[in-house]
């Protein structure tokens, strides 16, 4: 009880990260449904790593005296550019001669992860910043993120509101969509760019691990909870919010890394959903 009171009294400390976390949880939960249904979970993992690489690269350029470049293209912009290029590449390029798609995704993941660690080692600001990018241990967020992340979430939601039926159609039956003269490649790219946009901004604020967890686990949980497609999106967004909020809460009261706490909370929801499915099916 005392801990709870202490938590409530310290609201000025956690209010901003909680807002950012909750909005990120909601939008990642929503977008994650497409990621899971299209079986591209590891594309999202790769995008989070590429986004981290963009942030790390920006820090590195600043550390070697290219501050002007860093000012012109800040961590967010660089991360967004690299993540969007990768998203467009994965959306447009389906066939890789003699190499499986998974192999190319793994290549992107590994080169970005390796790059982040190497750049982290070279950055004079210390490894703490890189750990923050990767695992989201930051308890505080940039004040700008309190406006930027909800703004981007609203923009992405508007795009999805307009093209929801089309994104479902191309994800479920791309061949018929092509037959009906739908611009399948452009819609695929738009869908993955919205994922890239959210990943770029959320990774910088929360870290790669919690963003990946929020993209993958809430949708997987909600697929166990309901058989109705639209409800899957609603439940996934709610579980995303709860995972982020509870993750921050436990991080605060137990003094554990925030990113890891969010990932564990999302995992607990997944296990609960699995149990619920087991009970329901008898």
């Amino acid at each position, binding site marked *: 009880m005392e801990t709870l009171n202490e938590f409530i009294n310290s609201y000025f400390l956690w209010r901003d990260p909680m807002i950012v976390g909750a909005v990120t949880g909601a939008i990642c939960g929503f977008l994650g449904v497409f990621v*899971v*249904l299209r*079986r591209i979970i590891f594309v999202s993992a790769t995008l989070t790593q590429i986004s981290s690489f963009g942030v790390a690269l920006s820090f590195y350029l600043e550390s070697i005296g290219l501050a002007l470049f860093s000012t012109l293209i800040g961590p967010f912009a660089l991360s967004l550019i690299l993540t969007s290029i990768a998203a467009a590449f994965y959306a447009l390029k389906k066939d890789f001669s003699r190499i499986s798609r998974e192999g190319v995704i793994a290549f992107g993941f590994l080169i970005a992860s390796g790059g982040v660690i190497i750049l982290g080692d070279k950055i004079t600001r210390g490894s703490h910043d890189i750990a923050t990018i990767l695992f989201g241990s930051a308890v505080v967020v940039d004040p700008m993120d309190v406006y930027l992340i909800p703004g981007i979430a609203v923009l992405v939601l508007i795009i999805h509101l*307009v*093209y929801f*039926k*089309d994104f*479902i*159609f191309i*994800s*479920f*039956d791309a*061949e*018929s*969509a*092509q*037959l*009906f003269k*739908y*611009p399948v490649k452009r*819609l695929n790219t738009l869908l993955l760019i919205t994922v890239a946009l959210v990943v770029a901004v959320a990774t910088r604020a929360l870290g790669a691990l919690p963003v990946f967890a929020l993209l993958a686990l809430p949708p997987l949980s909600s*697929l166990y909870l*309901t*058989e*109705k*497609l639209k409800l*899957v999106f609603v439940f996934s967004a709610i579980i995303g919010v709860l995972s982020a909020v509870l993750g921050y809460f436990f991080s605060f009261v137990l003094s554990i890394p925030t990113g890891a706490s969010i990932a564990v909370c999302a995992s607990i929801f997944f296990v609960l959903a699995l149990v619920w499915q087991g009970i329901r099916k008898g």
Partner: protein
Amino acid sequence: MTDLIRLENVEIGYEKAGLMDSINLAIESNQFWGILGPNGSGKTTLLKTILSLLPPISGEISLEHSLVFGYVPQNEKFDPIFPISVCEIVSMGRYSRVKPGKRLTLLDREIVTKSLDSVGISHLKDRTFRSLSGGEKQRTLLARAIAGEPDVLVLDEPTASVDIKGEAEIMELVKKIQAESKVAVLMVSHFLNTVSEYSDHLILIDKDSNIFQAGMKAEILKHGSLDTFFGLNLHPN
């Protein structure tokens, strides 16, 4: 009568690797075409070329202006991870007439309801597609195809995953739809009996033997080409 679809000296194949050339074909409305051939004979490649899902390697394909296809693919191709309902799938049939970014109108929804009724699956509309039997899945895909009010109904192995009774029911349904709406039907199958019973025109295709024959069913059957085609003695007595 004008041709809905016309192929002139078309060569089909994937990525510039030709499978078969010199294909000539003209399909008119209210015709029922059966496409026969063994596995891997090029049936699906021909179908996808006609549907403009694959570009022809050479030759010309002319489709009547604003031609609408109703397509019934093999139901195994759909990923069961999607918790998508029968009604949602049938609604997709209307997307041939609803542009990206636009929503279905009340009229579209009425047509979807009518399509569900006409194939006898109204009671399944809220069920998930993945929970249906093979026959129910085919009916759902058929309802989706007719919801688009097509000029040509294209069926890819529509009876592959159903039993004999289900096969007869699906084929009677297709025949009924054709009789009511005068659509042209193009059906791929490797079941000779099904195709020869319901179609009035036949296409025999086998890329390995470089066979492509198309015409009235009676003509194709008369030539005794089925014997050569299937490598069987179909008239032992």
